[in-house]
């Protein structure tokens, strides 16, 4: 009788304790296969739930996208003729130097379906296993690196954004292509770690993926240097950067395959 009374009196606290404990267990061990599978299923379900949103956003943005693309097409046409000339010359020089040809990146276009958090850390895109998407493939848009695929459903994929607290990418920056690691800090800003003081770095320079990791091919733009400080007591410079991708206004992205 007494134990029943105690349980009913403290049931709120017990419920709180159980829920908090389970949350903490999830927080500290969230990469189990069960959670992975659940994440993939929820991602698929969420895509279906938000399909009307994508439909009307597609309609609203089509006209605007069309005029932008027409403009881009003309610019690209001009560039193309110039590049065609360079290509012929490049091929000729490569043959002379016996270089292997470089395969261009294979890109799979995708549509963003969610962006409901004030501090975005992940988004869901409308391609999945059915489109041959795999885990840890880079996701880019026209401005640069956006993130990587994390959880793959049949028809949808969760993308870990470059702004995620635990996101890291190896980069090269500056004229000497010095190596460093990109870490997000807050909003659209981040820092570059490991850039040695001997490397000259200027504001406005772009950091590109180094190509060292198995995930990211080289030379994808990542961030622009906004401030450099060498006056510290460490062997490395304090480099602040701004992420190139506009994470507030994206619709279409590309999965690098």
């Amino acid at each position, binding site marked *: 009788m007494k134990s029943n009374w105690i349980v009913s009196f403290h049931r709120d606290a017990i*419920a709180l304790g159980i*829920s908090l404990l389970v*949350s903490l267990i999830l927080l500290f061990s969230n990469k189990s296969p069960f959670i992975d599978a659940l994440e993939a299923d929820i991602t698929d379900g969420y895509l279906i739930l*938000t399909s009307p949103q994508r439909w009307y956003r597609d309609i609203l943005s089509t006209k605007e996208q069309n005029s932008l693309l027409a403009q881009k097409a003309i610019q690209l046409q001009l560039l193309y003729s110039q590049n065609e000339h360079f290509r012929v010359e490049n091929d000729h020089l490569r043959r002379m130097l016996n270089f292997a040809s470089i395969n261009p990146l294979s890109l799979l276009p995708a549509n963003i379906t969610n962006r409901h958090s004030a501090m*975005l850390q*992940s988004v869901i895109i409308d391609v999945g296993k059915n489109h041959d998407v795999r885990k840890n493939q880079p996701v880019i848009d026209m401005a640069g690196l956006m993130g990587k695929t994390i959880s793959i459903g049949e028809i949808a994929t969760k993308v870990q954004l470059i702004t995620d607290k635990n996101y890291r990418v190896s980069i090269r920056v500056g004229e000497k292509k010095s190596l460093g690691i990109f870490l997000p*800090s*807050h909003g659209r800003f981040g820092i570059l770690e490991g850039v040695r003081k001997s490397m000259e770095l200027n504001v406005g320079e772009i950091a590109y993926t180094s190509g060292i990791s198995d995930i990211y091919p080289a030379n994808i733009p990542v961030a622009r240097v906004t401030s450099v400080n060498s006056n510290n007591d460490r062997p490395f410079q304090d480099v602040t950067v701004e992420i190139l991708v506009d994470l507030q206004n994206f619709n279409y992205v590309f999965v690098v395959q």
Partner: protein
Amino acid sequence: MKNHKIILHSIFLLAVIIIQAYFPIIYLGSLTISPDITLVYISIMAILYGRFNIIFIAFFLGLFQDLISQVTLLGLFSFLKTLAAYGIGSINLHDSVWNRKVQSSVIIVTYFIHFFLYFYVVINDSASWIVILQYSFLQTIFTFGIFWLLNRFIFGRRLT
């Protein structure tokens, strides 16, 4: 009768998830604010029905939010939503003791703690206290604004 209630609440729960998914983001300069509709729902339910059941609902709603929006911090929202449900649920226990101002203060403080802890964990820069406070403050204002509107016009001030 009980089944009828369960179905009704399940529909409400689904509606909350859909509204959260479709709710527009507010842009304030470089800051983006997205009012937390699930937190408003948890607040209303905790005030109306007490905190025992709502703690579990909050946990599962938080977990759903985690599965949609988190990558490496799975469990963060479920942790914070559970805490918020417990805090706001105390209004139901002290309904006759606390006046409206105290009840509103409890909600605002709980919202602020919820968002502050969230942004403290999420923002990866120890030197950005101002940014964390800015986000927490604005999220609290907008989320409480929605709660206030619902309380005023839909619930006829029955909540606080």
